[in-house]
């Protein structure tokens, strides 16, 4: 009989939409609109509309499990904690690695960061931001001094020209897609660059279809055209930027002529010219990008190129402008902010910085100190180390991540994970990764806990508990605190609530320093930086100057030579394979594939093949074929379409039965250590009847 609405924030993408969970007699039974949200005004995408469907799935994990003789056996929390404490204590700090999670709250990420560096004393902590926007964080931090989206979602609607490259915004961030549509209604031009004519591309005023991996050439060509026409913002360059001559020297090279880049990218010169003109002369141009830019061996180069273009034309620091990496997961921004990266504490305070190290060491008060002031391993390096340097890493603690489906070159991932002596996974379902664990701990989903998360526009918003967790499941921070207590550090983890943890976070993190639950409980919440209790938060970054982290607070322009992807098509593997998401699914599908409404829309994966390519190969629409790369092969149904560029193929990566990441290349960007998910060489063949 008793029914109420509990306002909370969506657990899927990084847009940060709010919704009401409908709670009937203590159980979540539906999602209702929350019109008061300044981000989405009650509007939701299909994942949001059906975000309740997986919560009470029958196969939720409800009890700790310990693997005995290859089989999971139910255990009490105490048994599980005893085993974990005993095993983790038996390793040296450098033999342990931790994966935090872009899915859980800031408080929980902070808790596991403190656990890794304070209890385990390991430097090796990372999470799947490595696989999505590590290039953005690295690329923008070195050019602007801050790695986050510069502008806000509502602000995109103020833009006069929106350039989207490597983001299918309407499907992956639908409520940001809405801002794009609103800008267009007000007369803005939309330029869209992607190998696929996606739902986003279909709204474009100018669609530029290009070969995956040729991004830098495209940016350099546009910049050459802008400089040739005198469209650059000379005053902005003069006052706000450095190293313009180096940039100019590179982009003016003949190889970046429109004609030559047409050959490299496949985009007709006239389109490149049009794009350059619109972007440079609109008055307020916004650049949106996502994984299509970052997931390359040149990911950081690509990101720096977006920054170059924005600085060159003065499209930064004003409404309707900006460089806007659209963060993928609900709390990937927050997990990074919380220091779940191998090089920083919270708020990007460097671990190698002596003062920062002392600050955290003193504040935490571990009697036996914390990890060394050294950078640790990225997740991709952890996996390589496991495979290539046996015995160096022995134990791993994973909270809410599923590398067994999300990382590149899955056969290697499996080999690596099998080499672990001891693996703990805390999650809400028995994922592919949890299957490999020695101990599995049942955790809570977004509807079962309090906390906060940080959206792509740096908005820190609340999760609110709507129902009790199933069975014996516990909130992640509580599990971590209890393991820490078992290992002798109860005092450092004596929190009674998520709010207690948040207060500790704000005391140590300048960009969150002015926040409190009272303030973020309001529907507008707060966008960081918010350094003081009376600071209103920051919707637009770099308005008057770039971040203080930059010398003289000036933006750094960079000469970026174009490089081809690590693996390009050849006679044996003649096509380019790129990957992405479906509107109806989320990452490894743990939640969405258990949501009936979403699963019925898209029950399995596919490979997109251009109609002409399909004709030459004799492949029919819906035909089950085999796709092969140097790393593996999968059987997958063909989707023959004219919407994908000839020579390029696409697979969504959600589906274990046709896992795109068996095929993808684990070659890394040298700086961000992101794998090249978005371009590798592939071939497809008909399946021969036995």
């Amino acid at each position, binding site marked *: *009989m*008793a*029914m*109420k*609405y509990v*306002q909370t924030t969506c657990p899927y993408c990084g847009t940060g939409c709010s919704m*009401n969970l*409908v709670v*009937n007699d203590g159980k979540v*039974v*539906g999602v*209702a*609109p929350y*019109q*008061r*949200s*300044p981000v*989405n*005004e*009650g*509007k*939701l*995408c*299909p994942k*949001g*509309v*059906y975000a309740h469907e997986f919560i009470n799935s029958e196969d939720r994990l409800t009890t700790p499990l310990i693997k005995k003789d290859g089989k999971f056996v139910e255990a009490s929390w105490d048994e599980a904690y005893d085993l974990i404490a005993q095993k983790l204590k038996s390793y040296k700090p450098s033999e342990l690695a931790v994966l935090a999670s872009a899915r859980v709250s800031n408080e929980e990420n902070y808790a596991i960061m403190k656990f890794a560096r304070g209890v385990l004393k390991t430097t090796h902590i990372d999470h799947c931001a490595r696989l999505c926007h590590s290039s953005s964080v690295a690329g923008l931090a070195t050019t602007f001094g801050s790695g986050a989206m510069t502008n806000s979602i509502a602000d995109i609607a103020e833009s006069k020209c929106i350039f989207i490259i490597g983001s299918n915004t*309407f*499907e992956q961030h*639908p*409520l940001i*897609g*809405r801002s794009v*549509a*609103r800008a267009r*209604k007000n007369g803005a031009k939309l330029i869209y660059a992607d190998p696929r004519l996606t*739902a986003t591309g*279909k*709204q474009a005023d100018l669609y530029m279809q290009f070969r995956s991996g040729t991004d830098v050439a495209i940016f350099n060509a546009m910049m050459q055209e802008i400089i040739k026409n005198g469209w650059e913002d000379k005053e902005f360059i003069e006052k706000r930027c450095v190293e313009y001559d180096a940039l100019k020297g590179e982009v003016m090279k003949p190889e970046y002529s429109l004609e030559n880049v047409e050959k490299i990218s496949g985009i007709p010169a006239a389109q490149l010219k049009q794009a350059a003109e619109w972007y440079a002369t609109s008055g307020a141009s916004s650049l949106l990008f996502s994984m299509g830019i970052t997931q390359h061996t040149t990911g950081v180069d690509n990101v720096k190129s977006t920054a170059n273009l924005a600085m060159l034309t003065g499209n930064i620091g004003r409404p309707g402008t900006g460089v806007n990496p659209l963060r993928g997961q609900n709390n990937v921004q927050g997990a990074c902010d919380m220091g779940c990266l191998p090089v920083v504490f919270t708020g990007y305070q460097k671990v190698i910085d002596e003062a920062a190290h002392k600050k955290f060491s003193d504040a935490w008060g571990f009697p036996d100190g914390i990890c060394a002031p050294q950078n640790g391993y990225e997740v991709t390096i952890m996996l390589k180390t496991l495979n290539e340097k046996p015995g160096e890493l022995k134990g791993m603690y994973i909270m809410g991540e599923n590398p067994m489906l999300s990382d590149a070159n899955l056969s290697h991932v499996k080999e690596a994970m099998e080499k672990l002596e001891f693996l703990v996974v805390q999650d809400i379902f028995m994922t592919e990764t949890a299957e490999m664990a020695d101990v599995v701990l049942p955790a809570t989903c977004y509807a079962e806990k309090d906390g906060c998360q940080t959206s792509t526009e740096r908005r820190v918003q609340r999760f609110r508990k709507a129902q009790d967790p199933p069975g014996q499941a516990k909130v992640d921070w509580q599990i971590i605190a209890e393991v820490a207590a078992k290992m002798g550090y109860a005092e450092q983890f004596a929190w009674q609530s998520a709010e207690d943890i948040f207060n500790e976070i704000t005391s140590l993190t300048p960009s969150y320093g002015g926040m409190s639950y009272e303030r973020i*409980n*309001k*529907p*507008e919440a707060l966008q960081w930086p918010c350094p003081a209790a009376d600071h209103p938060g920051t919707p637009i970054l770099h308005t008057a100057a770039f971040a203080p982290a930059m010398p003289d607070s000036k933006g750094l322009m960079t000469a970026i030579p174009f490089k081809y992807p690590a693996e390009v098509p050849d006679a044996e593997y003649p096509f380019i394979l790129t990957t992405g998401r*479906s*509107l*109806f699914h989320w990452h490894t599908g743990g939640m969405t594939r258990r949501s*009936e*409404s979403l699963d*019925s*829309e*898209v029950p399995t994966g596919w490979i997109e093949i251009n109609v002409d390519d399909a004709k030459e190969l004799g492949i029919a629409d819906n035909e089950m074929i085999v796709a092969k790369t140097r790393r593996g092969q999968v059987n997958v149904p063909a989707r023959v379409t004219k919407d994908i560029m000839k020579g390029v193929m696409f697979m969504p990566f959600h589906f274990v039965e046709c896992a795109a990441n068996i095929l993808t290349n684990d070659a890394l960007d040298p700086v961000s250590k992101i794998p090249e998910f978005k371009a590798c060489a592939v071939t497809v063949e008909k399946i021969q009847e036995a």
Partner: protein
Amino acid sequence: MVAKGDMLYAWASDAACLEKGECGGAVTALLKYALESKMVDGVLTVKKGADVYDASVEIVTDPADVEKGAGSLHCGTLLLSKILTKYQDGANNKKLALPVKGCDMMGLLELARRNQVNLDNLVLIGLNCGGSVAPVNARKMISEKFGIDPSDVVKEEIDKGQFIVITKDGNHKGISIDELEEEGYGRRSNCRRCLYKVPRQADLACGNWGVIGDKAGKATFVEVCSEKGADLVSKAEAAGAVATSAADPKGIAIRGKVENAMLKLGEKWRKHDFAALSGNLWDDIQKETSRCIKCYSCIENCPVCFPKEEDLKKATTMVPTGQVPPNPMFHMRRLAHISDSCVNCGQCEELCPMDIPLALYSHAVRAEADTTYLPKLGEAPYKN
């Protein structure tokens, strides 16, 4: 004894209802009495959430909790009708009392005509409604047109054609709704077109229109619309929950004038909006729906949409699964389904992530159909 057709002034006897409620707190007091007297098992309240722009719902079973719903919320744009079918089994095995705006009421009537909701189990306190302002737009309007920080507003009201805000410092500022709407602010577009301002199909129709003299601001005008409504007021008065007096005849006349003025304004907006659809509606629908991301919000939130849940999301001849944007027939099929029943509640449009003007289309189609075809389910008990 109160009888159907009576026009009354009513106010709460209870101090808390009087203080927290609007215009004498009669609505809150009547809902509370309905629960106290076990006339109903629960009250569906619409309560203030984070602030005056935020409306939330809660079904309460403790009479003391009914006060949570006291006070008006003109920025609350939620629709109650479908909550009953989605989450309360159409009120088939419990009795509920709830306040209803015109759109809530029309939605319930359409649901009842299809046996989806059991009106016998509902006590419906109608609220006169001139329209609501979506929360984010309201804040924008207050910031840009009133020059006031919307977070400083502690109360808003609509009176004598003005949208009035009161700040935490006690300052009042009012601007005529006509002026606001000329400039693109103000009520939701479906509210502007609405011609159902006094929900006379509820058990009672309550509001502040026509409360004059020393009762102004201190009592609620109640039109008794049903035997059930008459019974509730009689018993509540006998029990000392509310006090009433006969409405002032001048007040009744003024109430009629206000209603007529609102209806005229509604006709004006209707003409304006429908005229803009002009001759290219077919193309416009195609163009606008090309942004659709198939979120199903227009179906999930529509009070006159009755999907077969087990089949709605399956592939069909016209609408294959998984396509973004979906085949245009996804929309045409729904439009055909609701064409004779759209109540212009506006939920489909307000909740569309791609701002497709769906309510405008379906309202226009219904309005045209009502003038050109005979009603298949008989004359609707309301006019809109």
